[in-house]
C-alpha cells in the first residue's frame, strides 16, 4: 500500500525563521515525490519534485530513502509562503496515480 503522512496540520513560524514541513511515505517500490502548494483561493500547483533536485522560491526537499522522508525546507520564511502544502507520491502501475498527504497549513507571522 502507498501512504503519505504529513504529521503537522498547522505550522506557524515568524518571518525570517527557518521552516520545515515534514513528509514521510511508505511505498514498496521506487517513489516519485512531489510538493504541491495551494495559496489562498488558488488552485493546487506544483512546487517541486525530487527528481529535478531543484530549488523553487527558496524551498528545497531531499529524498531520504533510509528514513522514507521528503521534508520541505526553507532557510528564511517569507509572508508570501503562507499556504497549504501537500506532499504527494506518484506510484508505478496503472493510472499514474498520485497519493496526497493530508496537508500542512503554513502561516508566516510578520
Amino acid at each position, binding site marked *: 500500500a502507498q501512504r503519505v503522512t*504529513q504529521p503537522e496540520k498547522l505550522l506557524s513560524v515568524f518571518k525570517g525563521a527557518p521552516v520545515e514541513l515534514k513528509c514521510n511515505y511508505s511505498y514498496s517500490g521506487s517513489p516519485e515525490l*512531489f510538493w504541491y502548494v495551494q495559496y489562498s483561493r*488558488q*488552485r*493546487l500547483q506544483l512546487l517541486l519534485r525530487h527528481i529535478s533536485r531543484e530549488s523553487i522560491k527558496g524551498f528545497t526537499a531531499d529524498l531520504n530513502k533510509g528514513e522514507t522522508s521528503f521534508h520541505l525546507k526553507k532557510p528564511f520564511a517569507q509572508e508570501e509562503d503562507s499556504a497549504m502544502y501537500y506532499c504527494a507520491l*506518484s506510484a508505478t502501475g*496503472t493510472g*499514474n496515480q498520485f497519493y*496526497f498527504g*493530508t496537508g500542512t497549513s503554513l502561516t508566516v507571522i510578520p
Partner: protein
Amino acid sequence: NAGVTQTPKFRVLKTGQSMTLLCAQDMNHEYMYWYRQDPGMGLRLIHYSVGEGTTAKGEVPDGYNVSRLKKQNFLLGLESAAPSQTSVYFCASTTLSSGTLYNEQFFGPGTRLTVL
C-alpha cells in the same frame, strides 16, 4: 491555452438531486483525475481515466460515476447527492512525456459543492 477548467465553480444541491461536474483540458493529456478535498483529509482520489473511453475507481468512488467520452473531457456525476458529498472537487490531468514515467499533475480551479 486555458489548461484545466471546471464547471460549475459553485453549486448547492438538495439531498437526492443529481448533477454533473465537467472537467476540460486543452493540453492533450492522456490521464485525468477527480479528487475531493475535505478538511483534515487532504485530497482523495475518486475516479481516474488513463485514456478516452476508459475509467477506473480511486480511493473513494462510492456515490460517484464518471465518463470520458472525449479525450479532453472528464465528467463526474452524482446520481443521488448526499450531505457527505459536500466538498471541494478538483480535476487534474497529466501526461507521460518521453523519458519520464511520472509527471506533474495540472489542477483545475475546483468546484465547491454543498449538499443540504
